[in-house]
């Protein structure tokens, strides 16, 4: 069956099974799955009660497409790639799945997918605390983040 790259940004609950079904293939002996979830973090005594996600949706879709092309170039045996990311008010977040004939490629590919998503896909996360305040988070992988001082000169 042909290689596919379905991506979805959704305000509804995500189904891991739906994503598994999207990448299953008779030619593949491996499916790698990454599911991001909400940690029960505390920051300065404030408890995180949830996350609010927003995206620049059209650009996120085009960046996903670029990212998947990069993955296929690096690991030509990768067959299906499927990414679902939640938007809006969230607890569980992000099933990612990649299938390939053998596990090594799919495991390396999914690692790069997640790193590159955090660096390049225009999605933002706000932590909301039990004290009713909130803060926008920054990924260390993002080159213009304050958490990424080494490359901030290039911006």
């Amino acid at each position, binding site marked *: 069956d042909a290689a596919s790259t379905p991506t979805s940004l959704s305000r509804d609950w995500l189904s891991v099974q739906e994503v598994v079904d999207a990448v299953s293939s008779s030619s593949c002996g491996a499916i790698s799955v990454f599911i991001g979830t909400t940690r029960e973090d505390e920051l300065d005594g404030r408890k995180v009660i949830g996350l609010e996600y927003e995206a620049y949706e059209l650009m996120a879709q085009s960046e996903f497409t670029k990212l998947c092309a990069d993955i296929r170039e690096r690991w030509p045996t990768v067959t299906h790639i499927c990414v679902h990311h939640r938007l809006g008010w969230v607890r569980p977040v992000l099933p990612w799945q990649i299938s390939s004939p053998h596990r090594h490629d799919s495991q390396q590919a999914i690692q790069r997918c997640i790193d590159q998503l955090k660096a390049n*896909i225009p999605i933002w996360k706000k932590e909301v605390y039990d004290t009713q305040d909130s803060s926008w988070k920054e990924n260390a992988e993002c080159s213009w983040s304050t958490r990424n001082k080494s490359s*901030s000169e290039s*911006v």
Partner: protein
Amino acid sequence: MTSSVCVLYFAKSVELTGVKEEIVAVPTPISSRDVWRLLLQRHQRLSVLQDQVVLAVRQQYVAVGDQVVTLADGDEVAVVPPLSGG
């Protein structure tokens, strides 16, 4: 020449400006640094994001700097605070 572009704000920049999008008249061609300065003049509170923001012009990332962009009426210019997806 001047173009009317659609400026989109996301995440913290929405809170700082109080708007999600607005039409802005921008001289063109223009450096991305001057686009950012022009937005700072409209919304001084955006200075909180100084040195930790990039722009996206027609959905392509452009660092705030010397790069010159040519803008047409209706083009999308987005203010992109540090990303936090995943």
